[in-house]
């Protein structure tokens, strides 16, 4: 297959507009992740691609053919449903075998593929059980298994790892990456897990309210978010935004003023007129402790400390504005302490009043 193309897809449920004019091209063999807030239309888009729903408007092209009117069964995709949709009356083995039997795969081959998938997904002990006798995570793995045994041209995966524990999730991730490399199948992957999206995807599509906000490689999105929404959405904890204004351009740098009169000098953004109100975005990881005597420091007060073991997330407040900072390791901080912070001007993001990135 030579890729997938969505052309001006629109989907309404009754009067509810769920997908509004989405156009996207996915290359053959590409791994694309869909991310976006809950309810933004990721699953719907996947179902449209799969052929389970019909778009209200627009066309879907697979492999150069317009498949808008082709049934799901004839599109040759495999899907992991967000709700699993396992066949409750079939054993796990039968669930896995069903799709293969449909396409007349030889018995021995079916056995081999099931054994393969079961090993990879660690569900071998449950092959004889029915879905009702499995735990949530086990069911989810069966759902993945059902798609991968098929070895289709393209996978549609709707939050396939959401109910798995961290360790399993890492190993599944690796397996999926390996599978992708091996089969060279196109994969469209919906996830809420940033790590999954960042590590697996060739490109990430950020959706919001049925529209595409940005499409790009993981690091593109991370480093150059097209707008405030994407900036806030990519990266955990989310980026801090401070209100501010441009107060002048000076040599190679632009002067910016923000909360409590704190001034920063950032890489020149000459296009912006002085006086324009902007948002300054800074990732929690880029906030460091200010040296005791530093002049350009932001004085804050800690309101919450979250110890994650490997790092410490500090929620602080400066002039009524909340800020999150992440420090490596375990810190001896506690809520109420005052905390002088330094914002790294090199990695600041500036956004105009309309939310667009200024660059």
């Amino acid at each position: 297959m030579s890729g997938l193309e969505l052309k001006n897809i629109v989907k309404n449920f009754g009067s509810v507009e769920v997908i509004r004019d989405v156009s996207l091209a996915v290359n053959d063999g590409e791994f694309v992740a869909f991310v976006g807030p809950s309810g933004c239309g990721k699953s719907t888009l996947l179902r449209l691609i799969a052929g389970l729903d019909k778009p209200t408007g627009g066309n879907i092209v697979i492999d150069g053919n317009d498949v808008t009117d082709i049934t799901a069964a004839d599109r040759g995709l495999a899907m992991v449903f967000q709700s699993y949709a396992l066949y409750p009356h079939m054993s796990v083995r039968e669930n896995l075998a069903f799709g293969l039997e449909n396409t007349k795969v030889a018995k021995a081959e079916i056995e081999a593929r099931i054994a393969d998938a079961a090993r990879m997904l660690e569900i071998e002990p449950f092959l004889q059980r029915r879905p009702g006798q499995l735990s949530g995570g086990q069911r989810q793995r069966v759902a993945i298994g059902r798609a991968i045994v098929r070895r289709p041209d393209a996978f549609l995966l709707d939050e396939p790892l959401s109910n798995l524990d961290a360790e399993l999730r890492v190993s599944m991730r690796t397996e999926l990456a390996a599978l992708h490399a091996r089969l060279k199948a196109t994969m469209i992957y919906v996830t809420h897990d940033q790590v999954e999206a960042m590590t697996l995807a060739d490109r990430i599509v950020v959706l919001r309210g049925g529209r595409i906000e940005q499409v790009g490689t993981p690091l593109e999105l991370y480093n150059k978010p097209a707008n405030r929404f994407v900036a806030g959405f990519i990266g955990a904890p989310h980026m801090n935004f401070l209100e501010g204004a441009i107060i002048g351009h000076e040599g190679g740098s632009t002067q910016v003023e923000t909360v409590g009169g704190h001034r920063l000098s950032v890489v020149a953004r000459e296009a912006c007129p002085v006086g324009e109100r902007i948002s300054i975005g800074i990732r929690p990881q880029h906030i460091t402790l200010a040296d005791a005597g530093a002049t350009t420091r932001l004085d804050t007060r800690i309101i919450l400390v979250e110890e994650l073991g490997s790092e410490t997330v500090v929620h602080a407040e400066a002039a009524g504005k909340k800020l999150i900072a992440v420090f490596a390791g375990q810190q001896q901080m506690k809520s109420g302490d005052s905390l002088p912070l330094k914002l790294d001007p090199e990695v600041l993001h500036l956004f105009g009043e309309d939310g667009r990135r200024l660059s």
Partner: protein
Amino acid sequence: MTAKTVSSEPPVKSALRQALNAPVRLLMGIVDIPMRAWQKLTGLNGMAGVFLAPNMLIFTVFVLLPLVINFIYSTTSGSAIFLPNRTYVGADQYRILFDCRSYLDPSTCAADTFWAAVRNTAVFVVFQVSVMLIAALTTALILNRELSNRGFWRAVFFFPVLLSPVVVGLIWKWILQREGLLNYALSPLGLEPFSWLSDRFWSFFFAVFVSVWAHMGFYALILLAGLQAIPKDLYEAAAMDKASPTRIFRRITLPLLMPNLIVVLVLALIRAVQIFDEVFVLTGGGPGTSTMYITQYIYETGFASSLRNPGLASAASILMGIVLVILTLIQLGVSARNEKKGTR
């Protein structure tokens, strides 16, 4: 995951519904008070008792008790109707039914008509139930498709169920008699008028056909409800699995429909064994005794003539009941094994 549109009712309508619901809610709320108290007292299994009680009470008085009385009837003789007026004869009635010189040949039995009826019924049941199942299932499957004017099509297939058996028998008799509609319709083909109902094969054929015609809508409706209860996302999953319609039917629809299919199978079987009215009106049991079924025998023996023999009729009905119980047990046994495997 059904792709259904948001049903935003107009506020008037929903307000109206609320108003209509209110008294029901209140009533149910009041019922709930003693129910809760009872639940506290007896736990969940006690509640099972509460839920069963009304049904079982009515059932015991109006179904079970008469059934027991019926059994007692079968041990008495005479034409009197009320038990006290009847004489106890023990197993005599059964002895009469089983009085045969050779069990292989009904005509050597004292009750030769009974055995003829038993044999006819057995053959009828085998054919009628299988035809019924297939027809009802096909209809249900087709009505379950995305048809426009669904309501109309459902009505088309359900309509005959609304007719009383007598009317059903009558319509078809008119169609099938020698100068009936069927012969009239066939006459352009150059076929001589034929007495369909005076021919052994055809009268059997039409007994099956007409009873299926009359009741298929009933079973199709049960199956339709069952089909609609199958989660749509399984069909979507199957579509993603590239399943063909036949395989979807065999591997998804059929197994998930099983509980309802069992209902249909059991009911169809029982009703086939009890077939009476419409065939009686249609063929009267003829030609000869070839479409005379067991219920007609019971009716004739026990009620039709002025010299009735309720004892013998009861004995025959008890025998029929026993056979049915055994058949049903077999069916349920098979399905229970499937059910156990399929705990969701």
